[in-house]
Protein backbone atom coordinates (compact mmCIF):
# COMPACT_ATOMS: atom_id res chain seq x y z
CA UNK A 1 0.00 0.00 0.00
CA UNK A 2 1.25 3.43 -0.79
CA UNK A 3 2.78 5.42 2.05
CA UNK A 4 0.56 8.44 1.69
CA UNK A 5 -1.95 10.10 -0.55
CA UNK A 6 -0.62 10.84 -4.00
CA UNK A 7 -3.27 12.95 -5.63
CA UNK A 8 -2.59 16.64 -5.98
CA UNK A 9 -5.81 18.41 -6.80
CA UNK A 10 -5.74 22.18 -6.95
CA UNK A 11 -8.79 24.03 -8.13
CA UNK A 12 -8.40 25.49 -11.60
CA UNK A 13 -11.99 26.26 -12.52
CA UNK A 14 -11.89 30.06 -12.37
CA UNK A 15 -8.56 30.43 -14.10
CA UNK A 16 -9.54 27.98 -16.82
CA UNK A 17 -13.04 29.30 -17.34
CA UNK A 18 -12.50 33.04 -16.98
CA UNK A 19 -8.86 34.13 -17.01
CA UNK A 20 -6.98 32.02 -19.54
CA UNK A 21 -7.07 32.68 -23.28
CA UNK A 22 -5.66 29.22 -23.96
CA UNK A 23 -6.09 26.18 -21.70
CA UNK A 24 -3.88 23.09 -21.97
CA UNK A 25 -5.17 20.04 -20.10
CA UNK A 26 -2.89 17.07 -19.56
CA UNK A 27 -3.89 13.60 -18.51
CA UNK A 28 -0.82 11.87 -17.24
CA UNK A 29 0.96 9.23 -15.28
CA UNK A 30 -0.52 10.00 -11.88
CA UNK A 31 -3.96 9.38 -13.28
CA UNK A 32 -3.36 5.70 -13.93
CA UNK A 33 -1.23 5.28 -10.82
CA UNK A 34 -3.99 6.52 -8.56
CA UNK A 35 -6.63 4.38 -10.23
CA UNK A 36 -4.35 1.35 -10.08
CA UNK A 37 -4.03 1.80 -6.35
CA UNK A 38 -7.77 2.20 -5.98
CA UNK A 39 -8.25 -1.01 -7.94
CA UNK A 40 -5.64 -2.78 -5.82
CA UNK A 41 -7.58 -1.81 -2.76
CA UNK A 42 -10.75 -3.17 -4.31
CA UNK A 43 -9.04 -6.48 -4.81
CA UNK A 44 -7.91 -6.68 -1.21
CA UNK A 45 -4.58 -8.32 -0.39
CA UNK A 46 -4.41 -10.13 -3.70
CA UNK A 47 -4.60 -6.90 -5.64
CA UNK A 48 -6.01 -5.85 -8.95
CA UNK A 49 -6.32 -9.31 -10.49
CA UNK A 50 -9.03 -10.14 -8.01
CA UNK A 51 -10.82 -6.84 -8.08
CA UNK A 52 -14.53 -7.20 -8.80
CA UNK A 53 -15.56 -6.92 -12.42
CA UNK A 54 -17.66 -3.89 -11.58
CA UNK A 55 -14.64 -2.09 -10.17
CA UNK A 56 -12.56 -2.91 -13.22
CA UNK A 57 -15.30 -1.63 -15.51
CA UNK A 58 -15.46 1.58 -13.54
CA UNK A 59 -11.68 1.82 -13.75
CA UNK A 60 -11.87 1.63 -17.53
CA UNK A 61 -14.73 4.09 -17.62
CA UNK A 62 -13.21 6.69 -15.34
CA UNK A 63 -11.14 8.64 -17.82
CA UNK A 64 -13.78 9.00 -20.56
CA UNK A 65 -16.44 10.04 -18.05
CA UNK A 66 -14.20 12.35 -16.07
CA UNK A 67 -12.75 13.94 -19.18
CA UNK A 68 -16.18 14.35 -20.72
CA UNK A 69 -17.37 16.02 -17.53
CA UNK A 70 -14.38 18.37 -17.47
CA UNK A 71 -14.64 19.34 -21.14
CA UNK A 72 -18.41 19.78 -21.04
CA UNK A 73 -18.36 22.13 -18.09
CA UNK A 74 -15.18 23.93 -19.02
CA UNK A 75 -16.46 24.71 -22.53
CA UNK A 76 -19.82 25.86 -21.17
CA UNK A 77 -18.19 28.04 -18.53
CA UNK A 78 -15.79 29.61 -21.03
CA UNK A 79 -18.68 30.38 -23.35
CA UNK A 80 -20.53 31.96 -20.45
CA UNK A 81 -17.51 34.15 -19.73
CA UNK A 82 -17.51 35.29 -23.33
CA UNK A 83 -14.54 33.44 -24.77
CA UNK A 84 -15.02 33.25 -28.51
CA UNK A 85 -14.86 29.70 -29.87
CA UNK A 86 -14.37 28.27 -26.40
CA UNK A 87 -13.74 24.70 -27.52
CA UNK A 88 -10.99 25.68 -29.95
CA UNK A 89 -9.06 27.39 -27.18
CA UNK A 90 -8.69 24.15 -25.20
CA UNK A 91 -5.89 21.71 -25.97
CA UNK A 92 -5.62 18.21 -24.62
CA UNK A 93 -2.26 16.53 -24.07
CA UNK A 94 -2.14 12.74 -23.74
CA UNK A 95 0.04 10.53 -21.60
CA UNK A 96 3.68 10.37 -22.60
CA UNK A 97 5.05 6.94 -23.45
CA UNK A 98 7.83 5.91 -21.07
CA UNK A 99 10.96 4.14 -22.26
CA UNK A 100 12.15 1.34 -20.03
CA UNK A 101 15.55 1.99 -18.49
CA UNK A 102 15.81 5.34 -20.25
CA UNK A 103 18.78 6.34 -18.09
CA UNK A 104 20.85 3.78 -20.04
CA UNK A 105 20.39 5.61 -23.32
CA UNK A 106 22.52 8.60 -24.25
CA UNK A 107 20.91 9.12 -27.65
CA UNK A 108 17.51 8.53 -29.26
CA UNK A 109 16.84 4.87 -29.97
CA UNK A 110 15.15 3.10 -32.85
CA UNK A 111 11.66 1.68 -32.70
CA UNK A 112 13.16 -1.82 -32.58
CA UNK A 113 15.32 -0.89 -29.58
CA UNK A 114 12.30 0.64 -27.92
CA UNK A 115 10.29 -2.54 -28.45
CA UNK A 116 13.12 -4.67 -27.05
CA UNK A 117 13.59 -2.55 -23.94
CA UNK A 118 9.84 -2.45 -23.41
CA UNK A 119 9.60 -6.24 -23.72
CA UNK A 120 12.49 -6.72 -21.29
CA UNK A 121 10.76 -4.44 -18.84
CA UNK A 122 7.49 -6.31 -19.20
CA UNK A 123 9.30 -9.62 -18.74
CA UNK A 124 11.00 -8.62 -15.53
CA UNK A 125 8.67 -6.04 -14.04
CA UNK A 126 4.92 -6.34 -13.82
CA UNK A 127 3.78 -2.91 -14.76
CA UNK A 128 0.11 -2.82 -15.68
CA UNK A 129 0.26 0.94 -15.31
CA UNK A 130 2.31 1.15 -18.49
CA UNK A 131 -0.20 -0.96 -20.36
CA UNK A 132 -2.89 1.50 -19.38
CA UNK A 133 -1.28 4.43 -21.11
CA UNK A 134 -2.08 3.38 -24.67
CA UNK A 135 -5.66 2.50 -23.77
CA UNK A 136 -6.23 5.74 -21.91
CA UNK A 137 -4.78 7.76 -24.76
CA UNK A 138 -7.30 6.15 -27.09
CA UNK A 139 -10.06 7.09 -24.68
CA UNK A 140 -8.68 10.60 -24.30
CA UNK A 141 -8.61 10.89 -28.08
CA UNK A 142 -12.15 9.61 -28.53
CA UNK A 143 -13.92 11.91 -26.07
CA UNK A 144 -12.97 15.30 -27.56
CA UNK A 145 -13.63 14.14 -31.12
CA UNK A 146 -16.85 12.25 -30.55
CA UNK A 147 -18.44 14.44 -27.92
CA UNK A 148 -16.99 17.90 -28.38
CA UNK A 149 -16.26 18.28 -32.07
CA UNK A 150 -12.48 18.44 -31.82
CA UNK A 151 -10.69 18.80 -35.13
CA UNK A 152 -8.05 16.19 -34.39
CA UNK A 153 -7.44 13.61 -31.75
CA UNK A 154 -4.24 12.97 -29.88
CA UNK A 155 -1.47 11.68 -32.05
Amino acid at each position, binding site marked *: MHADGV*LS*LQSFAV*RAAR*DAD*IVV*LGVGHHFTGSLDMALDYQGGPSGAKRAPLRARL*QYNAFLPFSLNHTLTHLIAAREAYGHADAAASILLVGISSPVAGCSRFRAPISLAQYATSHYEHRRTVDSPMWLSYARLNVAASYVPCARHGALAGLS
Partner: protein
Amino acid sequence: MALTADQQRGRCFSSPGTPTHDYTDGDWVPFTHHRYKILAHFWEQLGTTIKSTTPQNYGRCDRVTPNRILYEWQPHRCRLDQFSVQGVCEVLRGKSLLMVGDSTVFQLWLSFALLLGAQLGKNVKKASTVSEITASACGDATRLAFVRNDLVLYTSNVGDLMSAKRCDGFLSMQVTYPECMLIARCVPAPRVTYALSAPLSAC
Protein backbone atom coordinates in the same frame (compact mmCIF):
# COMPACT_ATOMS: atom_id res chain seq x y z
CA MET B 1 22.22 34.37 -51.17
CA ALA B 2 21.99 30.64 -51.95
CA LEU B 3 19.52 28.60 -49.96
CA THR B 4 20.84 25.84 -47.74
CA ALA B 5 19.70 22.25 -48.30
CA ASP B 6 17.49 22.60 -45.24
CA GLN B 7 15.86 25.75 -46.56
CA GLN B 8 15.27 24.17 -49.98
CA ARG B 9 13.06 21.50 -48.44
CA GLY B 10 9.46 22.56 -48.06
CA ARG B 11 7.84 22.98 -44.70
CA CYS B 12 6.39 19.79 -43.20
CA PHE B 13 3.16 21.55 -42.21
CA SER B 14 1.31 24.07 -44.34
CA SER B 15 -0.67 25.04 -41.25
CA PRO B 16 -0.88 23.63 -37.73
CA GLY B 17 -2.13 20.07 -37.90
CA THR B 18 -1.95 19.88 -41.69
CA PRO B 19 1.13 17.93 -42.80
CA THR B 20 2.26 18.36 -46.40
CA HIS B 21 5.02 15.75 -46.33
CA ASP B 22 5.90 12.59 -44.42
CA TYR B 23 7.78 14.08 -41.48
CA THR B 24 8.14 10.70 -39.77
CA ASP B 25 10.92 9.61 -42.15
CA GLY B 26 14.08 11.19 -40.85
CA ASP B 27 16.98 11.03 -38.41
CA TRP B 28 17.91 12.30 -34.98
CA VAL B 29 20.75 14.78 -35.38
CA PRO B 30 22.86 16.42 -32.68
CA PHE B 31 21.48 19.67 -31.41
CA THR B 32 24.41 21.79 -30.43
CA HIS B 33 23.06 24.90 -28.77
CA HIS B 34 21.50 24.19 -25.38
CA ARG B 35 18.67 26.59 -24.75
CA TYR B 36 18.50 26.24 -20.97
CA LYS B 37 19.86 24.27 -18.07
CA ILE B 38 18.28 23.53 -14.73
CA LEU B 39 20.82 23.81 -11.96
CA ALA B 40 20.30 22.82 -8.34
CA HIS B 41 19.67 26.31 -6.96
CA PHE B 42 16.90 26.78 -9.51
CA TRP B 43 14.35 24.99 -7.33
CA GLU B 44 15.03 27.13 -4.32
CA GLN B 45 14.41 30.22 -6.43
CA LEU B 46 11.03 28.74 -7.30
CA GLY B 47 10.20 28.52 -3.59
CA THR B 48 10.23 24.73 -3.43
CA THR B 49 12.05 22.30 -1.15
CA ILE B 50 13.35 20.28 -4.09
CA LYS B 51 17.02 19.32 -3.73
CA SER B 52 19.47 18.15 -6.34
CA THR B 53 18.97 14.55 -5.25
CA THR B 54 15.19 14.43 -5.10
CA PRO B 55 13.17 12.87 -7.92
CA GLN B 56 11.46 16.17 -8.68
CA ASN B 57 14.78 17.70 -9.74
CA TYR B 58 14.31 17.51 -13.50
CA GLY B 59 17.72 19.03 -14.00
CA ARG B 60 19.61 15.99 -12.79
CA CYS B 61 20.89 15.18 -16.27
CA ASP B 62 22.36 18.67 -16.55
CA ARG B 63 24.25 18.07 -13.32
CA VAL B 64 25.44 14.51 -14.01
CA THR B 65 26.33 14.98 -17.66
CA PRO B 66 26.58 18.73 -18.23
CA ASN B 67 28.03 18.34 -21.73
CA ARG B 68 25.73 15.63 -22.98
CA ILE B 69 24.55 15.79 -26.56
CA LEU B 70 20.95 16.69 -27.22
CA TYR B 71 19.16 15.67 -30.40
CA GLU B 72 16.46 17.01 -32.64
CA TRP B 73 14.38 15.32 -35.30
CA GLN B 74 15.26 16.14 -38.89
CA PRO B 75 12.87 14.80 -41.54
CA HIS B 76 14.38 13.76 -44.87
CA ARG B 77 11.75 15.27 -47.16
CA CYS B 78 10.75 18.47 -45.43
CA ARG B 79 11.76 20.83 -42.66
CA LEU B 80 10.19 21.48 -39.30
CA ASP B 81 10.03 25.05 -38.09
CA GLN B 82 12.60 25.83 -35.44
CA PHE B 83 11.32 26.94 -32.06
CA SER B 84 11.39 30.70 -32.21
CA VAL B 85 10.84 32.92 -29.19
CA GLN B 86 9.87 35.75 -31.50
CA GLY B 87 7.36 33.59 -33.37
CA VAL B 88 5.79 32.25 -30.18
CA CYS B 89 5.57 35.72 -28.68
CA GLU B 90 3.86 37.05 -31.78
CA VAL B 91 1.15 34.43 -31.34
CA LEU B 92 0.82 34.75 -27.57
CA ARG B 93 1.29 38.49 -27.15
CA GLY B 94 -1.32 39.84 -24.75
CA LYS B 95 -2.59 36.37 -23.96
CA SER B 96 -2.71 34.14 -20.92
CA LEU B 97 -1.95 30.45 -21.20
CA LEU B 98 -2.91 27.97 -18.49
CA MET B 99 -1.65 24.39 -18.25
CA VAL B 100 -3.40 21.94 -15.93
CA GLY B 101 -2.27 18.43 -15.15
CA ASP B 102 0.18 16.31 -13.23
CA SER B 103 3.96 16.52 -12.83
CA THR B 104 4.58 15.55 -16.46
CA VAL B 105 2.48 18.50 -17.58
CA PHE B 106 4.44 20.70 -15.20
CA GLN B 107 7.61 19.55 -16.97
CA LEU B 108 6.01 20.61 -20.26
CA TRP B 109 5.06 23.99 -18.78
CA LEU B 110 8.50 24.50 -17.27
CA SER B 111 10.27 23.64 -20.50
CA PHE B 112 8.03 26.01 -22.46
CA ALA B 113 8.59 28.82 -19.95
CA LEU B 114 12.36 28.33 -19.95
CA LEU B 115 12.51 28.16 -23.74
CA LEU B 116 10.77 31.54 -23.81
CA GLY B 117 13.18 32.92 -21.21
CA ALA B 118 10.23 33.66 -18.95
CA GLN B 119 10.48 35.31 -15.54
CA LEU B 120 9.29 32.59 -13.17
CA GLY B 121 7.27 33.29 -10.04
CA LYS B 122 7.25 31.25 -6.87
CA ASN B 123 5.33 28.10 -6.07
CA VAL B 124 2.20 28.79 -4.05
CA LYS B 125 3.69 26.94 -1.07
CA LYS B 126 7.14 25.75 0.00
CA ALA B 127 6.94 22.05 -0.82
CA SER B 128 8.51 19.39 -2.99
CA THR B 129 5.56 19.48 -5.37
CA VAL B 130 4.90 22.45 -7.59
CA SER B 131 1.17 22.96 -7.29
CA GLU B 132 0.55 26.48 -8.60
CA ILE B 133 2.96 28.81 -10.29
CA THR B 134 2.93 31.60 -12.84
CA ALA B 135 5.50 33.14 -15.15
CA SER B 136 5.80 36.25 -17.27
CA ALA B 137 7.11 35.89 -20.83
CA CYS B 138 7.55 37.93 -24.01
CA GLY B 139 8.53 41.15 -22.27
CA ASP B 140 5.71 40.80 -19.76
CA ALA B 141 3.14 40.57 -22.56
CA THR B 142 2.30 36.92 -21.98
CA ARG B 143 1.23 35.18 -18.80
CA LEU B 144 1.97 31.48 -18.30
CA ALA B 145 0.32 29.60 -15.44
CA PHE B 146 0.39 26.04 -14.20
CA VAL B 147 -2.06 24.40 -11.80
CA ARG B 148 -1.49 20.88 -10.55
CA ASN B 149 -4.54 18.67 -10.79
CA ASP B 150 -3.70 15.02 -11.35
CA LEU B 151 -7.18 14.01 -12.48
CA VAL B 152 -7.89 17.17 -14.50
CA LEU B 153 -11.04 17.25 -12.44
CA TYR B 154 -13.06 20.34 -13.24
CA THR B 155 -15.35 21.54 -10.51
CA SER B 156 -16.26 24.90 -9.09
CA ASN B 157 -16.95 23.23 -5.78
CA VAL B 158 -13.86 22.83 -3.59
CA GLY B 159 -15.70 20.16 -1.62
CA ASP B 160 -15.48 17.87 -4.63
CA LEU B 161 -11.72 18.17 -4.71
CA MET B 162 -11.59 17.54 -0.97
CA SER B 163 -13.67 14.39 -1.49
CA ALA B 164 -11.28 13.11 -4.10
CA LYS B 165 -8.30 13.86 -1.87
CA ARG B 166 -9.95 12.06 1.01
CA CYS B 167 -10.48 9.05 -1.21
CA ASP B 168 -6.83 9.19 -2.12
CA GLY B 169 -5.82 9.38 1.52
CA PHE B 170 -7.94 6.43 2.47
CA LEU B 171 -5.84 4.25 0.23
CA SER B 172 -2.92 4.70 2.56
CA MET B 173 -4.79 4.83 5.83
CA GLN B 174 -6.76 1.70 4.96
CA VAL B 175 -9.79 3.27 6.52
CA THR B 176 -12.98 2.49 4.72
CA TYR B 177 -14.93 5.46 3.52
CA PRO B 178 -17.88 3.88 1.72
CA GLU B 179 -18.19 6.82 -0.61
CA CYS B 180 -14.61 6.32 -1.76
CA MET B 181 -14.87 2.73 -2.89
CA LEU B 182 -13.58 3.45 -6.31
CA ILE B 183 -14.28 6.47 -8.11
CA ALA B 184 -16.35 7.59 -10.52
CA ARG B 185 -19.73 8.77 -11.15
CA CYS B 186 -20.49 11.95 -12.98
CA VAL B 187 -23.75 13.55 -12.02
CA PRO B 188 -25.32 16.58 -13.64
CA ALA B 189 -23.30 19.72 -13.18
CA PRO B 190 -21.73 21.23 -11.31
CA ARG B 191 -21.10 18.47 -8.77
CA VAL B 192 -18.82 15.51 -9.27
CA THR B 193 -19.44 12.66 -6.88
CA TYR B 194 -17.26 9.68 -6.16
CA ALA B 195 -19.03 6.45 -5.36
CA LEU B 196 -18.81 2.76 -5.97
CA SER B 197 -22.49 2.19 -5.95
CA ALA B 198 -23.30 4.49 -8.79
CA PRO B 199 -24.42 2.77 -11.99
CA LEU B 200 -22.21 3.56 -14.95
CA SER B 201 -25.23 4.76 -16.85
CA ALA B 202 -25.45 7.66 -14.41
CA CYS B 203 -22.61 9.31 -16.28
